């Protein structure tokens, strides 16, 4: 079992993730996009952080770089003091395999695999995973194990995606617009699951969203605008997702 989060103990010394002067620009069609401009941020063990920003603010890019899916144009990223930005392809794969859990806006389930098999896709390659059905039970889908994505509602699909992300007991859970494709009620249910995972397993969790209301459930709120950090504050009045309104 991962360490139980000790919220009072969150501090500089326990920075899991250290981001310094990260920039990213890329070409999309015939346009150059500066997605990130010299972003510096630290995240701490057990923290639940919400990254807020409008579409195109660079939040997805930041998340992708943190998750080792993308490389920055310049700047550095450290995970437990190890420089991820200097990692080889194989090291990045190992990093994603061991330490990172991803949840995407469009769930990105493998449509040809059932809920259970989608989770097993991860547990098969992880080092000390939960049982796949246990992970699904954790997100309240113990009775939907053998359903295929097409047979599940959007909320259920997203919960499968969360189960898939947490089944490996990642140190870092990265959620990219997890409620973006969901209605209000279902979205809250999904956020509830994420908070639950964060609390129960002590997984450091980053949720990115354009929906400011979600910030209410976070320990910390970071706002991005045009690729730059425009706000970084601690949320002292954290509420449960069920109390969120938007």
């Amino acid at each position, binding site marked *: 079992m991962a360490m139980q989060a000790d919220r009072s103990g969150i501090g500089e010394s326990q920075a899991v993730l250290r981001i310094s002067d990260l920039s990213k620009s890329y070409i999309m*069609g015939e346009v150059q996009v500066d997605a990130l401009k010299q972003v510096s941020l630290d995240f701490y063990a057990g923290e639940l952080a919400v990254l807020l920003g409008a579409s195109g603010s660079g939040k997805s890019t930041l998340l992708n*770089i943190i998750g080792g899916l993308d490389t920055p144009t310049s700047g550095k990223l450290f995970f437990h003091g190890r420089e991820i930005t200097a990692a080889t392809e194989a090291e990045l794969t190992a990093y994603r395999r061991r330490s990172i859990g*991803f949840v995407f806006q*469009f769930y990105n389930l*493998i449509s*040809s695999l059932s809920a259970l098999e989608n989770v*097993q896709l991860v547990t098969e*390659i992880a080092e000390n995973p939960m049982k796949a059905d246990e992970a699904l039970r954790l997100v309240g889908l113990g009775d939907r194990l053998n359903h295929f994505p097409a047979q599940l509602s959007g909320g259920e699909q997203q919960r499968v995606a969360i189960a898939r992300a947490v089944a490996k007991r990642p140190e870092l859970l990265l959620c990219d617009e997890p409620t973006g494709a969901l209605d209000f009620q279902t979205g809250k249910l999904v956020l509830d699951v994420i908070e639950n995972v964060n609390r129960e397993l002590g997984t450091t969790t980053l949720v990115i969203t354009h929906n400011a209301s979600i910030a209410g459930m976070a320990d910390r709120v970071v706002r991005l605008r045009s690729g730059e950090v425009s706000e970084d504050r601690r949320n002292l009045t954290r509420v449960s997702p069920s109390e969120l309104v938007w």
Partner: protein
Amino acid sequence: MKQLQRKLLRDLLHLKGQMLAVAAVVACGISVFVSMSSVKYSLEASRERYYSRYRFADVFLQVKSAPEFYRETVSRIHGVASVTTRITTDVTLDVPGLDEPATGRLVSIPEYRGAPVLNDLFLKKGRYIEPGKPEEVIASKPFLEANNLVPGDHISAVINGHKKELLIVGMGLSPEYIYEVQPGAFFPDKRRFGVFWMSRKALESALDMTGGFNDLSLTLAYGASEKDVIMQLDNLFRRYGSLGAYGRSEQLSDRFIVDEIKQVGIQITFLPLVFLAVAVFLLNIVLRRIVATQRDQIAVLKAMGYSNEDVGLHYLGYAMIPTAVGAIVGTALGAWLGRGLMNIYADFYNFAELVYYFRIEDVALSVILSFIAALFGALGAVRSAVMLPPAEAMRPDSPVIYKPGLFDREPLRHIMPVPVRIIVRNLERHQWKSALSVLMISLAVAILIAGRYTYDAVDRMVQVEFSRKHREDVTVIFNDPMPPSIAYNFASMDGVLEREFYREEPVRMSFLHRSRRQSIKGLESAVGLQRLVDKSNRQVNLPQNGILLTTTLADILGVRPGDRLQIDFLQGKQLHRELLVGGTIDEILGLSAYMNIAELNRLAGDGGALNAAYLRIDRLKGAQLNTTFKKMPGVAGIMMLKALKESFDELIARSMTTSTIILTTFACVLAFAVVYNGARISLSERARELSSLRVLGMTKGEISFILLGEQALLTLAAIPVGFLIGIALSALLARALSSELYRLPFVFSAYNFLFAFIVIVIVSFVSALAVKKRLTSLDLVEVLKTRE
């Protein structure tokens, strides 16, 4: 990685139509390779085995008659391992149940079956002849079977002018007659030609050749020079009317088998290559599409921590599994086809044992080759899956950069209705893919054309050989050269409308260092019953001066019209002459040299001789004439043109029909696979676009037109290209399959092109229908909702 494998299998199942198409193409290629390789090996091995087990000779010699003690002399020649002498003769037969006369070759065998002899007999049924019973013979298997005769039946023959009743006691085969044809013929006529083995003693007395022989064969010692032995034999037997000794390469039966094996070898290389090329192409486009539609899945796998190798291997699986399925099906199909082909070969070639060897090496090689092809086809797509940066994979493909193309210029732009513009633009923007699609469909067309080309070629061959060249009904071949006065015998024959004689004189032709045994055919005219017609169906006349050579013979000798050939007559006065090459003729069959008979007589220095008669007969008196022929003395063989053509048609029909059916089926598979996959991929790429058009108010018919119109256009473009490739392929085939024995004429019937056109249109139509079903059942809302 069980779940990843499960995903692979389920995805493959989902794409089963396309994957089956790929597997089918691979299966076709493998089955051709496996069947042809095994047939080639089986023929080679059966031949080797047969030759060594039944001691097939290395060098052969025919003389008029030589004393038996020469056997000793020959066996002392350096390099000779063993010698057998025999008496052979060709006779006219009266076969029960056969109206026309048949020809028999009598070959002597020892009365007692003791010491091993060369060209030994394989006794298939019945028994060996008994000593002291001169009437007993063993007959060749194809002849007996074709005439429904069995040991115990009788047959009569005119031997040396005397009619003799022969008792068939056995059914046999010999390595000398694996390809059993009448001398002077190219195609077997099993009913009207057979080989008969009978007692040496009986033949000696029947032919007045006691203490002599007229046929000698020998085997060479290891490392001996065939050329030296032949030279010594020629010196030794010149005065006994030797026509020159020759090795296996001039032994007709062996020649045919060696050619056949060579031809099978050619087919092994070219057909499977076409199929593998198409498989590479199909895997390439199918896999590219799979990777494109699974961008997000690739991203998520990588995000989960699957390595590039894992992802690469996973996508390679999409190529390897259908290839493996194709390999398994193709191997089974190839084994089955190979066996079937061997049965057809058994019709042509009479082996003591035609063993079908199905070799694991051939299977292994073809499977390895197809996996290499699959790897090659998949490489691009797999590489792009591996290289795809996961973050980029999350984003949809960036839109294709469209720029105005050739057809967007005024005034073309306004002439074309929008759906046509969409089609043209799409083809224009995927020029490479479109061009490759056209090429692949055209390969299917080309296989159809090349497959039917042999039909056309054989058709022309029949036309030239059986009707244009020969207008006679019967050819009577004499046992020995006859004096010109023999013509009167035929003149008085009731029912003979026209007659024409020719002389066939064996000579050795030399030019510089090249030389060849060859007979010169002296003709009375080149516009009479026999005509000289080349393979393009053009009539050729005898040159004013000198000799007319077939092109192939001229090439072998290295002469051109105007050169002077050295001629050594091998019989009679054995004069040496110099002769002008007056011209060449590109004939279909064999090697020939023609000249005016009077001139030939003059050169030979004798009073003239005739070897055969061409007769045109009154059909109404055919039966009566047949009876006369059956009793005619001094006749070595009688050939009936009509019967020859019939037996040829029958023989060719079976083998050609089989190979055409196979090739047509394979070409259909190829065309279907390419067109269907093309349309399916187009549909997958453009489902959103087409649905949008539907939402905007276009009918199902209109969007079908856009998608299928594109495929139709590709198919139509492929047809003329395929015609051209098919013609080129046929030219290659004609060239590769040509030998000294025959040259395939280069002809194409309109029917060939029409057939290919119709087959491809039908196949395209069927594959379009299969895709149209999916197209019209597009769920508009779903398609628009899902992220590309």
